C-alpha cells in the first residue's frame, strides 16, 4: 500500500522567466499538473505550496491564497512552506501525511521561485539572500556563502577520501549531458572537463560549472490517497518519505562529509518502503554543487563513503550506467529555482516511472529515489517512488 500517489505532474521550463509574477509562474506548472491528472479544481481539497525566498527577495508573502486565487482554488485550505532548498519536498511530506491521515483525498503540491537577475536582484544581492539559510550569528558575519558551505564539505571529502577535481568536473559533464536531453533544462549544452576548469572560481574547489545556476521556475504534482489512485491512469506511488535535520552551525557537525540528516532520512524512507539502496534504479539528488552530488550518492547508500567521485568518473551514474543519477540534468543543468526543486525532482521521477521521459528515459525503472537537501545539509527529505503494478 502506498503512503500517497502522484496522479498528475507539471513543471515550467527552468531558466529565466522575465517579469512574470510568482503566482502566474506557479499557474504554468499547476494547471498542467491538474490537466495531466484529469482533475478539476472542484476535486482539489488543499494546496500545499513551497517558496523559499520571496519574503526577502521580492517582499511577497502569504503566497498560498495568492496562488490559489490565481488558479481557481479560492476557498481551499492552503499553506506555504519554507525549509531552504528542501522547501517543496517538505510541502510534499506534509501533504502525504494529511492524505494518509484521511484529512484530504486530493492535494495540489508544488513550489515556485524567481532567482535570476531578471527577477530584480544582482548576484551579490541574491548571494546574500541564499546565505540567509546559514547561521545568522555565527556564519553570516564570517562571510560564508552556500557555494562556500559545500566547498568546505567537499574540500574535507577530498582530504579524507582522495576525491579529485576531475571527479567533480565529471559530475558536471554528466549532468550537462543529461540536461541536453531534457527540453525543460536551463542548460541544454554539453560541456567538457576543460569547460569546468577554465571557468572562474566561485569558491574553491568549485568553478562556475561546478555550481547550479540561478533559476526561475515552478513545479507541481497532484497527490491522492492510495485507495483513490486506482481510479487514475498511471498512478506512481510514494512508498517512503523520510525527513531529518542536522546541526547548525556546520562547524559543529560531527562530520561535514557525512550529511547525517540525509542518511537518517534515507534510512526512514527505505524502512517505510521496505526497500534498500540496492533496489534503487535511478535517482534525482540535490546537486546544487558537483561535490554535493558525490556526498548525496554516498549518503543515500548507492556507494561506499569515498567511492562517489570515482563512480561518477567511471560512468556508473550516467544514463546507461548501473544507477543513473540526475537523468533530468539535476540542479546543475536543469536549474534550481529553490522552492520549486523538491517537487520538480518528483515530476522527473513520475515521468521516468511512467516511461515518458523521452530521450533521457532510464531503462525500465521500477524504483526511483529523490534526495532534496536544505541549508548546510541541515534539512533533508528522501522520497522513494514506485510505478504501480
Amino acid at each position, binding site marked *: 500500500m502506498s503512503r500517497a500517489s502522484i496522479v498528475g505532474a507539471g513543471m515550467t521550463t527552468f531558466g529565466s522567466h522575465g517579469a512574470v509574477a510568482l503566482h502566474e509562474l506557479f499557474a504554468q506548472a499547476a494547471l498542467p499538473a491538474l490537466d495531466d491528472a484529469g482533475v478539476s479544481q472542484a476535486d482539489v481539497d488543499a494546496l500545499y505550496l513551497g517558496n523559499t525566498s520571496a519574503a526577502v527577495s521580492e517582499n511577497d508573502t502569504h503566497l498560498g491564497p495568492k496562488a490559489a486565487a490565481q488558479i481557481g482554488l479560492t476557498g481551499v485550505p492552503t499553506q506555504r512552506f519554507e525549509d531552504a532548498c528542501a522547501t517543496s519536498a517538505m510541502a510534499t511530506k506534509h501533504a502525504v501525511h494529511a492524505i494518509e491521515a484521511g484529512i484530504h483525498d486530493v492535494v495540489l503540491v508544488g513550489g515556485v521561485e524567481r532567482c535570476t537577475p531578471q527577477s530584480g536582484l544582482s548576484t551579490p544581492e541574491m548571494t546574500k539572500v541564499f546565505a540567509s539559510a546559514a547561521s545568522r550569528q555565527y556564519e553570516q558575519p564570517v562571510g560564508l556563502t552556500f557555494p562556500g558551505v559545500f566547498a568546505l564539505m567537499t574540500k*574535507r571529502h577530498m582530504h579524507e577520501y582522495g576525491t579529485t577535481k576531475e571527479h567533480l568536473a565529471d559530475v558536471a559533464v554528466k549532468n550537462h549531458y543529461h540536461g541536453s536531453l531534457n527540453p525543460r533544462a536551463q542548460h541544454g549544452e554539453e560541456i567538457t572537463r576543460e569547460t569546468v576548469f577554465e571557468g*572562474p*572560481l566561485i569558491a574553491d574547489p568549485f568553478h562556475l560549472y561546478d555550481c547550479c545556476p540561478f533559476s526561475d521556475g515552478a513545479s507541481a504534482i497532484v497527490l491522492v490517497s492510495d485507495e483513490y489512485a486506482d481510479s487514475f491512469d498511471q498512478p506512481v506511488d510514494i512508498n517512503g518519505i523520510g525527513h531529518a535535520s542536522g546541526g547548525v552551525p556546520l*562547524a*559543529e557537525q560531527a562530520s561535514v562529509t557525512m550529511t547525517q540528516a540525509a542518511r537518517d532520512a534515507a534510512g526512514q524512507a527505505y524502512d517505510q518502503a521496505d526497500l534498500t539502496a540496492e533496489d534503487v534504479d535511478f535517482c534525482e539528488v540535490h546537486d546544487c554543487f558537483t561535490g554535493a552530488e558525490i556526498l548525496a550518492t554516498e549518503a543515500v547508500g548507492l556507494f561506499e563513503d569515498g567511492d562517489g567521485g570515482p563512480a561518477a568518473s567511471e560512468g556508473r551514474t550516467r544514463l546507461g550506467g548501473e544507477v543513473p543519477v540526475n537523468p533530468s540534468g539535476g540542479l546543475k543543468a536543469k536549474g534550481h529555482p529553490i522552492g520549486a526543486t523538491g517537487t520538480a525532482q518528483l515530476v522527473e521521477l513520475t515521468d521516468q516511472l511512467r516511461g515518458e521521459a523521452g530521450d533521457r528515459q532510464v531503462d525500465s525503472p521500477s524504483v526511483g529515489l529523490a534526495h532534496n537537501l536544505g541549508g548546510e545539509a541541515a534539512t533533508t527529505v528522501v522520497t522513494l517512488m514506485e510505478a504501480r503494478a
Partner: protein
Amino acid sequence: MSSELPDGWTDDTLTHAKWAEAVRVGTLLGQRCRSCDHVVATPKSVCVDCTGRELSTIELPTTGTVYSETTIEVTPVGQDDRYQVAIVDLGETRVLGQISGDVEIDDEVSLSGHVEYEGMPGPTFSPVE
C-alpha cells in the same frame, strides 16, 4: 512565572551577545556540559549531546588546526570581494572563522582579530609561523 529562567540557567548563561562581546576583545567563549563534558563553540540553551541544562561558560583555545577551508570569490553584498574562510578545529569543538593570510587543511592557526558585518563580529584567524 514567565519572568523566571528555565531550570539550570543563571544570569551567566552564555548568549550570542556575550559571545560577540568576547570575540571583539580577542576571546573565544564556548560551553562545557557539566554532566557529559561536551563542548560547543557557539552558545546553546542545553547540551546538544545530553540535553543537560547546566552548562559552564568556558574560554576556548585561541589556536587550532584547519579542518576545512575555501576561498570565497563571489560574495554577498556588504562583504569584501574575496576572502578565505575555514573551519578551525580547537580540539574539543570547531568554529568558523575568516582567514587573514592563506592556509590549507591541517595548518596551525591562531585567533588574530575579528571582522564586522551588520553589527555582528566573526572571528579572524592567522597562520602560525
